[in-house]
């Protein structure tokens, strides 16, 4: 039971090169394979034909590292909710389907080649404060500060972010609010994060803005595509934290 799949893939040789959608047809796609394995198969075909294979990023291929990420038919990470591109299986398509694949598009994520983008802006946002400053060796006993299960769970919900960038790709404004707020929320909820709470939110928001991401108009498209279903409630929390810090910080 194999399928014929028509692909339209964004090909762009380098950051500043002119790109375009190129069509390919795959004649022999098994419904059991993953979306990226289908691209592997396409690439083998292209290599044998002496053509340049399609560059795309992936690593863990099980939805946790956040390396993969394609915009499939206009939706970041494709049609399934709560899953990454690498988790998407071809069984959700039928023979004869045409699939358009584009890279994440945002000024903050410049294209490197084809479907590969540079997401180092996210690293810089974290550098600006997305951590608890705790030098190795300086920690008190793990049970010294009890943290209620509910709080721990809520912090974990936010901490689950894999940094894939789909939120930016999906956001009509190319805003990085969901990513940024997820980290801010995790550390605002946990007592360990409180010492640096005000600086953290002010600096991280400033860095997010400096990276040329857009503002958040509350479309919540980000929450829908987020493979870890991070809620836009984290964005609300970031705003509360921000205004509180802005108004009360010395």
């Amino acid at each position, binding site marked *: 039971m194999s399928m014929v799949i028509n692909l339209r893939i*964004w090909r762009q040789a380098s950051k500043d090169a002119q790109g375009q*959608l190129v069509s390919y047809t795959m004649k022999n796609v098994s419904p059991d394979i993953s979306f990226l394995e289908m691209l592997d198969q396409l690439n083998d075909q292209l290599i044998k034909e002496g053509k340049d294979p399609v560059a795309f990023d992936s690593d863990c291929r099980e939805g946790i590292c956040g390396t993969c990420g394609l*915009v499939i*038919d*206009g*939706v*970041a990470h494709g049609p399934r*909710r709560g899953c990454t591109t690498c988790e998407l299986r071809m069984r959700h398509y039928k023979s004869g389907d045409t699939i*358009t694949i*584009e890279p994440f*598009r*945002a*000024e*903050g994520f410049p294209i490197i080649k084809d479907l590969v983008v540079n997401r180092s802006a996210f690293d810089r946002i974290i550098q600006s404060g997305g951590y608890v400053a705790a030098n190795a060796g300086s920690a008190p006993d793990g049970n010294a500060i009890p943290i209620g299960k509910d709080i721990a769970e809520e912090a974990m919900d936010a901490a689950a972010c894999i940094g894939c960038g789909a939120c930016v790709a*999906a956001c*009509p*404004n*190319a*805003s990085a*609010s969901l990513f940024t707020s997820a980290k801010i929320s995790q550390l605002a909820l946990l007592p360990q994060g409180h010492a640096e709470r005000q600086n953290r939110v*002010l600096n991280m*928001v*400033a860095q*997010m*803005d400096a990276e*040329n*991401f*857009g*503002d*958040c*108009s*509350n*479309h*919540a*498209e980000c*929450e*829908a*595509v987020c493979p870890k*279903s991070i*809620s*836009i*409630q984290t*964005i*609300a*929390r*970031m*705003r*509360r*934290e*921000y*205004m509180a*810090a*802005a108004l009360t*910080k*010395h």
Partner: protein
Amino acid sequence: MPHLSAILNSSVGKKFLQAITGLGLFVFVIGHLIGNLLLLLGADAFNHYAKFLEELGHGMLVPAADFGLLMFFLVHAVTGFRVAVLDRGRARPVGYQKTGNAGGRSRKSIASMSMIVTGVLLLIFVPVHLANFKYGAFPAAPLGYYGPQENQIRDLYTVVEHLFADPFWVGFYVVVMVALGFHLWHGVWSAFQSLGATHPRWMPFLTLIGHGFAVLLAIGFVYLPIYMNLNQRNFDQPAPPVTTPAANPTGGPQ
């Protein structure tokens, strides 16, 4: 201590402004609709209401509120333009060839995607509206006065009535009022989210209220022009209470 302008120009600050001003306008619009509904009760009720408003706070309240509204309106419009046009354009200079909707928990909708369109419509609407009603620029609607000399009443009712006798204006208002409904469909709950005033528990409720208000306001505002158009008095017979004013206190056109 972070600088105020840095705060208000940050992505969070901009939305904070947008939300505060949006909510302010929202509250005005609610009050305005309630007041305007007096049109349904006839000329006297409506005109007396307008008079009552005018005299509030020794006649200072309306100008003060107008000034506040104007500021809100301008800030709201400018920030809206920055968010939805300038920043969006900068953040995604090259768009997608194919766009889609994720569905699921997304709140992306025609309403949310067209905030700037509905907003600009309102931006065009309000000056026209003020010109019509406040400054009587619409020639077919002579602003008359009646009542005792020392306590004159502006006959706004007739102005409104005249305007809506014209199907063009009815159509214009209906379009704008529907746009307002769309604007508020996304706008109301969104403003709370922008202020960070949401919580998983009351979010569904908040959304419901927001959508409810949007629909009610739209219905109310759409209903008025249509009602006025369908229930015209016969203008060929001059309306009895209208008198020519001895003096024109507002300095408006005769």
